[in-house]
């Protein structure tokens, strides 16, 4: 799955490289800037991956955490070892978060590498108008990766909870991914404005503050608080469900 994520920036870079010219203002943000500066490959790839590819892969990993072990029957042997139910949940959740870190870093690193390979790389003009060197720009991309990882942390907790509800991993994965889509759809309906700040996908694209000089952390903080809330609520639900669950698989 990490390979599939790495393929996104590669695909974008190769397509842009092969096409004669990219009309400005069309396609995903940053796309039209790639030919001038390869640094924008990673940024473009991240924008493309956030709504679907990342929730898809993270949903698969998070949905599989407990249900996958139950489906294989290994859950009963882990518990008899004894792994401890709380410890098992914590380790499984940390595993999902590690995947989120790896997934976002893979996009940034693969994007930077292919960008440097196919396009000129140079100083980048930030959204605030300041220009920073390529090294500083790469650092900003890693910050974005961290932001997106945090964005996915609450979603992963939702997946963990769903995973404790069933012994069929495919069902848990599908339900988790569907929730990510549903959350984004609800977030796009203006009639539901009151609900928007509570949706886990609400701040997913709000990493622009990290691309200004100086960096402002407001949206990072708001996002982190929301995700921590999701982690607390769905972590507790997962614990409540799993601690007393009969393991009959």
């Amino acid at each position, binding site marked *: 799955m990490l390979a599939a994520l790495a393929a996104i920036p590669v695909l974008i870079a190769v397509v842009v490289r092969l096409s004669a010219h990219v009309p400005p203002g069309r396609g995903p943000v940053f796309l039209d800037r790639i030919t001038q500066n390869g640094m924008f490959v990673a940024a473009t790839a991240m924008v493309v991956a956030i709504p679907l590819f990342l929730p898809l892969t993270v949903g698969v990993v998070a949905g599989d955490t407990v249900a996958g072990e139950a489906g*294989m*029957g290994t859950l*009963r042997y882990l518990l*008899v070892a*004894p792994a*401890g139910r709380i410890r098992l949940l914590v380790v499984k959740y940390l595993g999902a978060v590690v995947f989120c870190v790896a997934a976002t870093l893979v996009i940034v690193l693969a994007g930077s590498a292919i960008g440097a390979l196919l396009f000129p790389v140079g100083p980048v003009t930030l959204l605030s108008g300041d220009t920073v060197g390529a090294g500083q720009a790469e650092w900003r991309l890693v910050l974005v990766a961290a932001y997106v990882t945090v964005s996915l942390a609450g979603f992963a907790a939702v997946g963990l909870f769903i995973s404790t509800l069933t012994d069929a991993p495919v069902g848990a994965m599908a339900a988790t991914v569907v929730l990510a889509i549903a959350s984004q759809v609800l977030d796009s309906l203006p009639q539901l404005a009151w609900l928007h700040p509570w949706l886990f996908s609400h701040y997913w694209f709000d990493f622009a503050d990290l691309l200004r000089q100086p960096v402002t952390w407001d949206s990072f903080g708001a996002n982190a608080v929301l995700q921590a809330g999701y982690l607390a609520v769905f972590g507790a639900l997962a614990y409540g469900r799993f601690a007393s669950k009969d393991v009959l698989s």
Partner: protein
Amino acid sequence: MSPSPGDTGTTGPGPAALAVETHGLVKRFGHQLAVGGIDLAVPQGSVFGFLGPNGSGKTTTIRMLLALAAPTHGAVAVLGQDMPRSFRTVLPRVGALVEGPAFYPFLSGRANLHRLDAADANSPAGTRAARVDAALDRVGLTHAAGKKVRAYSLGMKQRLGIANALLAPRELMVLDEPTNGLDPQGTREVRSLVRSLATEGTTVFVSSHLLAEVEQICTHAGIMRAGLLVAQGTLAELRRDGREQVRVLTPDMARACGVLARLGLVPEIAVSVPTDDDGGLVRAPVPERRGEPADIVAALVADGVRVRGFAVEAGSLEDRFVELTGEGFEVVE
């Protein structure tokens, strides 16, 4: 046999300590009663055969012993401590095979055991490699240890499951149908493994629906039927509780039945013994108030029944098992 706590059926002085003890253990799945209030008493150091037909509640009981499922009612104590509350201190001392082995197919046998051993936060990592290899050796899997489990045969997986139960020195082994899928050689190895565990002082709780297996390796047995524990004790006690039987070998089976019925017995034609030219077997439990067996022969002969063989036999464990669980093949719901 009254399975009250303390009355464990052992002959030693005083009540023996119990490795597994349940009181009024009930498990309900919705409306279905899987386990209907059982009082198990498994003495420490015994090899306890947990017998019962398919669907009689053996695996469900084992899941409750291992804190995988919570009892609907009743209490469970394993190695003297309440379950599921004390699972943290109890389970490291228990090796288990529950309803068949389960492993990650994409990992090798050895890697699977490493992972399962590491699942217990308190298992010493320093000795892990040595313990894994010793367990693999004990079940004869050393040569296949590097193979992916996906490429294992059913019997190899079963052996790996038993190896997992042997990863640490255990005080109690809970083995749910350990010989399932094993070849005759493997079955014998499991038997000798169970014996060697028993001589090391490990209590072995082994579920099975194979009576012969239990008769060969067990010191004690409990018999389940439709979620109820219908008997438990030493094998000798279980045999003794089986009623003695009159067995008549005769070609005149119908007439023999008539005579026996007139004498107040309840005869039946044994279906397990084929009827041929020499006739078949008619058997009947000896009534409580028994007369002289020779009188029965005299009555038979007086009525013109040609008796080819006559015996009064103690019930075998098999008769007892059939008597307790029913002869039919239907799964009791």
